[in-house]
């Protein structure tokens, strides 16, 4: 039958079930890869980054988990066990070994007050890690909000907010950190004696003042980076669409703008960790860090300098560990940056 070309009649054979061959043609050959999966794949391929991640995890295990079941505590002073060399025992401990007891050796010896040095180093690196991680979170929250608000509203808001950032940026940070931590010492110590603020005493007033300093000064770099990203993103269609649908400014910033620069946020935050650890060890070395008897890698190194002629390992151990921590975070951060950068996609 000759079909009229203008006919609306449908062809019956178009509605037959598809053959196996046709079905095969529609099967997706490669699973579509999302942003996270893709970045993760690239990160796992990066050997340097994976090794640094492994080192970070090992150090974290030793600084957060091991001290809780280690036979010595960081402030426990053992009489007669002062200034022991690594792997040696005091007289009392030798007696106990002779009696058949098992005594954990002092892997790194003891300091001049008879405290086990290995556990002090572990607790010291816990302080460094905590400072690095907490400071990074503080910087992330403040910097991301500040930068995105400045960029989103633009105009006068942006100009004023970024001038403030410029001023903080030019102020030499270490000078202000020193100044602020001196000024905060007293008030925070007073605060810790009050019932509701007991946690300040537990964390230590100096540590809290370090966090406050980071919160006050260190977010500016993050704010600048986020601002430059948001300036581009806010012109995109989905922001206009969200606005048209009646989304508020807060919702747009949180749900649309910040989630779209998540890669930058993660990378910048990770790279912020080593620089915070750097600053903390610097302050502790100058004697402005955590209060005794709590050790920090900086203060351990600083104390060890006086006796380095006789007890060099007391200096070398914390010095190498802090360098290793900073190096691993640096390399891992670089790996993350490469993984999240779509321009490097292979």
């Amino acid at each position, binding site marked *: 039958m000759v079909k009229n070309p203008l006919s609306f009649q449908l062809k019956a054979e178009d509605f037959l079930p598809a053959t196996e061959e046709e079905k095969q043609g529609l099967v997706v050959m490669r699973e579509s890869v999302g942003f996270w999966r893709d970045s993760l794949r690239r990160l796992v391929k990066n050997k340097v980054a994976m090794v640094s991640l492994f080192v970070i995890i090992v150090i974290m295990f030793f600084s957060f988990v091991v001290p809780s079941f280690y036979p010595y505590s960081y402030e426990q002073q053992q009489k007669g066990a002062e200034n022991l060399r690594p792997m040696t025992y005091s007289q009392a401990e030798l007696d106990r070994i002779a009696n058949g007891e098992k005594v954990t050796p002092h892997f790194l010896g003891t300091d001049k007050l008879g405290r086990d040095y290995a556990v002090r180093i572990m607790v010291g690196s816990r302080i460094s890690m905590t400072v690095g991680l907490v400071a990074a979170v503080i910087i992330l929250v403040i910097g991301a909000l500040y930068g995105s608000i400045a960029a989103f509203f633009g105009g006068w808001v942006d100009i004023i907010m970024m*001038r403030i950032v*410029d*001023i903080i940026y*030019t*102020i*030499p940070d*270490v*000078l*202000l950190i*020193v*100044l*602020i931590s*001196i*000024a905060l010492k*007293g*008030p925070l110590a*007073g605060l810790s004696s009050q019932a509701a603020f007991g946690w300040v005493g537990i964390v230590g007033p100096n540590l809290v003042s370090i966090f406050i300093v980071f919160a006050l000064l260190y977010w500016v770099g993050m704010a600048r980076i986020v601002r430059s990203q948001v300036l581009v993103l806010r012109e995109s269609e989905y922001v206009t669409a969200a606005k048209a649908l009646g989304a508020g400014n807060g919702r747009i910033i949180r749900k649309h703008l910040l989630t779209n620069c998540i890669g930058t946020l993660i990378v910048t935050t990770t790279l912020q960790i*080593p620089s915070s650890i*750097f600053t903390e*060890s*610097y302050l502790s*070395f*100058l*004697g*402005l860090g955590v209060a005794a008897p709590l050790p920090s890698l*900086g203060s351990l*190194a*600083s104390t*060890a*300098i006086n006796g*380095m*002629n006789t007890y*060099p390992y007391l*200096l*070398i151990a914390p*010095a*190498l560990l*802090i*360098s290793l921590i*900073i*190096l691993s975070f*640096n*390399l891992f951060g670089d790996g993350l940056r490469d993984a999240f950068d779509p321009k490097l996609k292979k």
Partner: protein
Amino acid sequence: MTKYICKRLFMAVLTVFVVATLTFFLMNAVPGGPYEAEKSISPQAKAALEAKFGLDKPLFEQYLTYLKNILHGDFGPSLKQRGRNVIDIILTKFPVSAKVGIISVMVSLLVGVPVGCIAAVNRGKISDSAIIVIATVGIAVPSFVVCSLSMYFFGVKLRWLPTVGLTTWKHYVMPVFSLSFYPTTYIVRLMRSSMLDVLGQDYMRTAKAKGVSRAVSLFKHALRNAVLPVVTYLGPMMAYTLTGSFIIEKVFTIPGLGGEFVSSITNRDYMMIMGTTIFLATLMVAINFLVDIVYKIIDPRINLK
């Protein structure tokens, strides 16, 4: 250009003003005030001292006098070193720090720039990889680690170099090495990546095509363009050198301003802390200001707002 300079100058002055204000109010927030540490002082003497330095007046009035005094270069007397003014101490100690600092900056530039270029030109070869590894590790080592370890190995173990003071050229080796270590590794990385960038540019190929020799193209075309990011790093590097001097001078017992600042922190010499902070902050802001203007002059493409 003039407009730009005026704008930057205004920002610089504003920054110094903010620092001075912050310093004043932070130091006033320290409980007990500056004379509290003097335990031996009698109430009458304390009142007399407070009257002498105007500490009995309202806070705002004190602030105004303080600003006026700063403008005259008067930071008040040192609380611990009797009979000496803060500004005198700063002026006698600062030249020592400046000497070490300037030598360190020169060393970082003279080592960092050529090494970074060598790495970039030999891209992918063993020398390049070795330089990258050293620079990557070096950038992670805090200055106190460098100075204490070098002091241990070269000063205490091998006894090659003196560890205390600053009298002969040998005394300068370790402090300068420790202070320039981090900036040098930073400049190497910066220089390498910017040189690689420049070497891939079209004008480098053009230069080669028109028969310019390798040396001329490297020194005249590539280096001039590649060195620009290093100029921007000058400001942060100066800041690092100044603050790094606190540690170096403490460890090597150098009679400079950094060591003085650290000991004034431990002694709670508030006047000294305030004076040094404002002095160093002004210095850094001034350096940043100069660097910005120099950058604008040598690279007219950059149109900073």
